[in-house]
């Protein structure tokens, strides 16, 4: 049987593979089909907390982000007013410092967790998933650390 296959290719001489009942083509498979052994259970509440966090942070973010947008873009002059002086003015008040800090943290964690879901959904290979998530984690951590530093070590007199 096995010898016939190569022969057949030569005989037909075309690019069409010689599929037959004895030598069928591979079937069309979806990614990551479930089997008896998958998925392995981990027994943690992580996904639940993640889910809850998305909702809770979402509600808080509505206030923070919409407030932020209003101030930045709508109230007196929009983006046009934004500049170093404007930022300096705002961060002079701890209220705005904490506002922005909370926004930064929540948005990054919310968005980061959201992206984690997206990666889980679309990255088919386990390897790719690990890599992408590492990348994501680094980006989020970096942004949060950087952002927090900026807010707290901000020096209006740098000029």
């Amino acid at each position, binding site marked *: 049987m096995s010898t016939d296959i190569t022969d057949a290719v030569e005989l037909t001489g075309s690019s069409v593979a010689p599929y037959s009942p004895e030598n069928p*083509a591979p079937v069309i498979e*979806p*990614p990551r089909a479930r089997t008896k052994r998958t998925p392995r259970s981990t027994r943690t509440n992580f*996904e*639940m907390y993640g889910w809850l966090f998305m909702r809770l942070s979402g509600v808080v973010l509505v206030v923070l982000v919409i407030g932020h947008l209003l101030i930045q873009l709508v109230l007196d002059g929009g983006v046009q007013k934004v500049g170093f002086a404007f930022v300096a003015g705002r961060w002079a008040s701890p209220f705005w410092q904490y506002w922005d800090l909370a926004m930064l943290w929540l948005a990054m964690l919310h968005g980061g967790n959201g992206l984690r879901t997206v990666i889980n959904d679309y990255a088919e290979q386990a390897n790719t998933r690990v890599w992408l998530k590492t990348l994501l984690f680094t980006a989020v951590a970096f942004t949060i650390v950087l952002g927090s530093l900026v807010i707290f070590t901000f020096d209006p007199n740098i000029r």
Partner: protein
Amino acid sequence: MSTPNSPTLDKHSSALDAAENTASHLITVTLRVRRFNPEVSAEAEWVDYRLPIDPKERVLDALHKIKWEIDGTLTFRRSCAHGVCGSDAVRINGRNRLACKTLIKDINPEKPITVEPIKGLTVLKDLVVDMDPFFQAYRDVMPFLITKGNEPTRERLQSAEDRERFDDTTKCILCAACTSSCPVFWNDGQYFGPAAIVNAHRFIFDSRDEGGEQRLEILNDKDGVWRCRTTFNCTDACPRGIEVTKAIQEVKRALITRRF
């Protein structure tokens, strides 16, 4: 109450209409079927079939006409032909349907009607997909009554309200229309999928059952209910009219309330 013998001629109208309309006038439709036969080719392809059919007939009838009169190699599953066995979930005009519950007249016969296998499960031949992963997910949620202690001698009592609580999810016929309509499932077959959750729901909310905690634990995991993104494709697809997303949300809420 009408008296039993009073003539009900006034009620005849619509039934009569139906009768007259059924005095069959045939129309010609094009069925565009996604075909795949690994014994012939590694590629799936669209094949058009034109056939005369009564618009009151089902898409399943059209498939049968093709198989019986045009091309006997067309392969699909079917059994009951009236929407209760769950054999023939396919994608008709881009949406999951039972071929036996979709009438030609309800889907615009002017344009070609596309019929393709459901998404996210291995296509084995034409419209036939591998159902094993689907049933595996079903088995993995322990879809059976779990009780402790001694069996009662008579039936377990259950109030009509308690019975009503899980009525919706008892209707499931395991057709997989929901699971294979779920965008999360298309990309990750490890997700339990709505059908498995529906069948877990059926027991979690059964007042006689005592295994709810175990099932919730299983569905709490990374491929469990939390993967659902509430896209409602499952609810739209369910031929039994089960409010699938609602059931999933109830399971999520049950998990949260039990964990806190």
